[in-house]
């Protein structure tokens, strides 16, 4: 692993806690210009789809440890406020479910 984020980890995963799957969607705030969204809308329209608005954002999946849902929510909200979203230009939404999968780490390709 390349260690890039070696600047301390305030939200470090606690031990013995339950695991939660948190999906964070970050999108441009209303009124913030979104050229990527406009380009996608233009492409969809040229294919004949009647699309009124497209906002392009970013999807981030996290696996966090917390003793309950409320703690998981607090933790992920704090991540969004501090790093994952920039409140000047972005809003975010969070969806959390308990991670039922076996295994010890985030899965990936």
């Amino acid at each position, binding site marked *: 692993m390349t260690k*890039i*984020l070696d*600047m301390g980890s305030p939200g470090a995963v606690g031990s013995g806690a339950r695991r939660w799957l948190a999906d964070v969607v970050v999108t441009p705030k209303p*009124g*913030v*210009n979104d*050229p*990527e969204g406009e*380009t996608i809308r233009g492409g969809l329209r040229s294919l004949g789809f009647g699309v009124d608005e497209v906002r392009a954002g*970013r999807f981030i999946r996290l696996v966090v440890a917390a003793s309950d849902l409320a703690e998981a929510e607090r933790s992920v909200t704090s991540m969004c406020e501090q*790093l*994952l979203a*920039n409140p*000047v*230009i972005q809003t975010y939404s969070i969806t959390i479910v308990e991670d039922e999968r076996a295994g010890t780490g985030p899965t990936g390709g």
Partner: protein
Amino acid sequence: MSGWVAVLSFPGSNGDRDALSAFRDDVGVEARLVDHRETALEGASAVVLPGGFSYGDHLRCGAIARFAPVMASVRSFANRGGPVLGICNGFQILTEAHLLPGALLRNRTLQFHCHWTHLRFEGCDNAWLSNIQPGEVLRLPVAHGDGAFFADLETLDRLEANGQVIARYCDVDGRLSPTSNPNGSSRAIAAISNEDGNVLGLMPHPERATSPLIGGDDGLRLLRSVLDVLAVPV
């Protein structure tokens, strides 16, 4: 003259050596690279956040660099009134760190752009602009993918009222036109200042415009203001 210019180096910075050599070789002052893990800027008279792709520009440009250990020192340096200059990615880091208002979005075309631009300087009440007169047009190169300055209307109005809008993209005669704004910046803003006038963020690259041989030396005029800065202890 005492003091020195601190040029910060984050993982992925790539304009750090250009900035260093512009200050050392072209302006002729002492300048040192300061690693992102440093926590002290003792004795530095000015701080420069150079261009590049800090941390690969992942998440958002400047979002991760903002948390580098050195940034706490930059913040207190700026709060003491020390002159801080953010160029390109450095400007992005300063907005992410809330040392400057607003944010920098993807270019209107969604593409990276590299070319020379003209800039009309307006508010020049800033530590970095002692050599530039309001109304002057300078020619500097831009090279960025995320350079569209954005702030909400209220903030934009406040910046204008406070004289914090430092420079706008313009044509060769200093006029603003739709084609002179290369990236879709709000009100064609290319550079802004904080309220106290000691922190400056600009998208174009003065450190790449230090000699007629490489296309122009207007950038050198801007960087030379550091000579006045070095004369004043922070």
